[in-house]
């Protein structure tokens, strides 16, 4: 019998490789862009922000963009892995429980009802909408005082998403400006990253990620079923609630900042699972590391693919990610949950 996959890939090495890769992509993200800046010049203005055009490009655009790509990518990867564990559904993406639909509905509602609120407030509305949608889903999921089982949560999420999506569609039909606002936001892009957004989003994501990664052992116990979980001293209801809150915060913050690029959250945990098997203690941190590599890598590709314009990261992620995902599915048996 062959050794289980998790034994063949010792964790520290994998983690170190992923960290090195992430660092490499981050360097690329600082060095490569629509404007050609020589590597030496990039290095020079990084050390000495002299107010030149190159310095402004690096400090005001590429640095926030890179940091946001790492934060949002990590959030999407981890929330996808958590969502798949929570729902015991390999097709789950972080938006399954209405997070994206809620964020989109809030963005459009705010744009229509309070047009004076301005572009900068989109992120706040998206966060609020994501939170509200998940609260509704959870309330429906445990309606009548019953337990919020994975199936009930998923069904409640789908129903809520459907209602919110039609609400969003109705509003965008009425109001052209909202349609425009949503259209850009829906694609998903890192291009508009701003320093203050990073400062707002990154700490929230870091905190939620710490809690999320710590859930690994408890989710492992729950994977054996609620009864077995209880026998191992884990309260299924509480673990599910905490996971749900963490997913909402992670996915809500990432979605609010860069738009709904949930495909990363679907694909990355699958790729990681090939190496780790179903052990959440490995799956969760490695997904958190791999996802920003994918997202930021796609963003860098998008910057050079359509010069002098740019392709949105959301578009590139789908173009690059989908074939990889298909390859992954075909190459070997998809690891079960």
């Amino acid at each position: 019998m062959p050794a289980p996959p998790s034994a063949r890939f010792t964790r520290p090495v994998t983690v170190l490789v992923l960290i090195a890769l992430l660092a490499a992509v981050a360097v690329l993200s600082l060095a490569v862009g629509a404007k050609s800046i020589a590597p030496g010049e990039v290095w020079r203005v990084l050390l000495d922000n002299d107010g030149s055009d190159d310095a402004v490009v690096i400090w005001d655009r590429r640095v926030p963009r890179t940091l946001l790509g790492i934060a949002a990518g990590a959030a999407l990867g981890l929330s996808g892995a958590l969502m798949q564990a929570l729902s015991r559904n390999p097709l789950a993406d972080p938006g399954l429980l209405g997070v994206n639909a809620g964020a989109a509905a809030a963005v459009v509602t705010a744009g229509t009802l309070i047009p004076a609120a301005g572009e900068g407030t989109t992120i706040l509305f998206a966060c609020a909408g994501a939170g509200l949608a998940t609260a509704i889903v959870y309330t429906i999921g445990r309606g009548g005082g019953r337990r919020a089982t994975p199936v009930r949560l998923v069904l409640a999420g789908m129903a809520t998403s459907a209602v919110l999506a039609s609400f969003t569609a109705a509003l965008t039909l009425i109001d052209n400006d909202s349609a425009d606002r949503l259209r850009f936001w829906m694609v998903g892009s890192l291009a508009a990253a701003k320093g203050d957004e990073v400062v707002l989003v990154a700490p929230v994501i870091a905190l939620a990620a710490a809690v999320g990664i710590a859930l690994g052992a408890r989710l492992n116990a729950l994977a054996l079923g609620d009864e077995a979980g209880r026998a191992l001293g884990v309260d299924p209801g509480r673990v599910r609630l905490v996971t749900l809150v963490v997913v909402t915060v992670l996915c809500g913050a990432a979605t609010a900042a860069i738009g709904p690029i949930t495909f990363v959250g679907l694909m990355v945990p699958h790729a990681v699972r090939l190496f780790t098997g179903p052990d959440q203690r490995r799956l969760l941190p490695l997904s958190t590391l791999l996802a920003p590599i994918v997202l930021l890598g796609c963003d860098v590709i998008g910057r050079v693919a359509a010069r002098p314009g740019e392709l949105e990261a959301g578009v590139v992620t789908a173009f690059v990610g989908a074939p990889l995902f298909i390859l992954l599915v075909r190459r070997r048996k998809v690891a079960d949950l």
Partner: protein
Amino acid sequence: MTHVLRRSRLLIAAVAAGALALTGCGSSDDSSGDSASPATSRVVEATNGKVTVPANPKRVVGINYATGALLDVGITPVGTTKIEEPLELTPEQRAVGAEIPEVGAGDQVNLEKVASLKPDLIIVEGADFDWPIDKLTAIAPTLYFEVTKPSELVGSAEKIAQAVGKDAELKKLKDAYAARLAEVKGKYPEALEKKFTTVSTYGEGKFYIGTRTSWIGQVLNGLGAGFAKESDKTDTHENEYSQEKISVLGDADVVLIGNSGGKFTEQTEEMLATGQWKLLKAAKAEQVHGVDFSYADRYTTLTAVLTQVEKILQGLG
């Protein structure tokens, strides 16, 4: 739905040349002084083929851009789709426009409302959005003028004027524009030697530089103004750039940006607030100007832009 043309800031290279030729030939029957039998109808060639329409339509419904074209030549439609960007009315037309009953918005036309207005002519001017031409034709004779690129809008407005027998009114507008163009050109030869550019942005880290064939660019082109390097093109009306490349506007002395509702959009304000923008020569010299009616599609709004450009030229000394 109208955003396809909204982005593509408009206009017109061939129109100026081709227009005169078109102006004379709208009516099928204006033969001599035989007042005994005035024509009651004329045949108009539109995108949807040859259509027989009343010579003096009394109740016209304007759909999409057609409403602006009709108001320009003194016809108030009895019904219109919602008047919103990119269709902009001049201040004088706005009060009239506000009174017209709406028969839908964007590409959504409420056929029952159209029918209830009992029109004797329906005119659709816009991009190909699967307009219900057959159903409209069942209500009243319908002319559809398809616009495949923004530069066709002015020519299309001209055809609409001819279709409703308002050739003379259109010629007045057109001649007035040509005269103003010549006047401004003669008045500010030095200011016109500066390098001009026109840009727009919809956020998301990108922006667009309009060329000589962009709408504002066309007015500048007509004036014989100088163009900044990235605007000095005619192959397309605008090109997309990442905002990382804002510095390509470095050689521009004057930047013109289309307003929305009399002011810059949020996305424009955001771009103007970036460190890169503030490094531009034009920004330092405070030569970044908003321009109203930048989605203009016809001669009144063309002239309105020209008037604003003249003010900017005055400021350049």
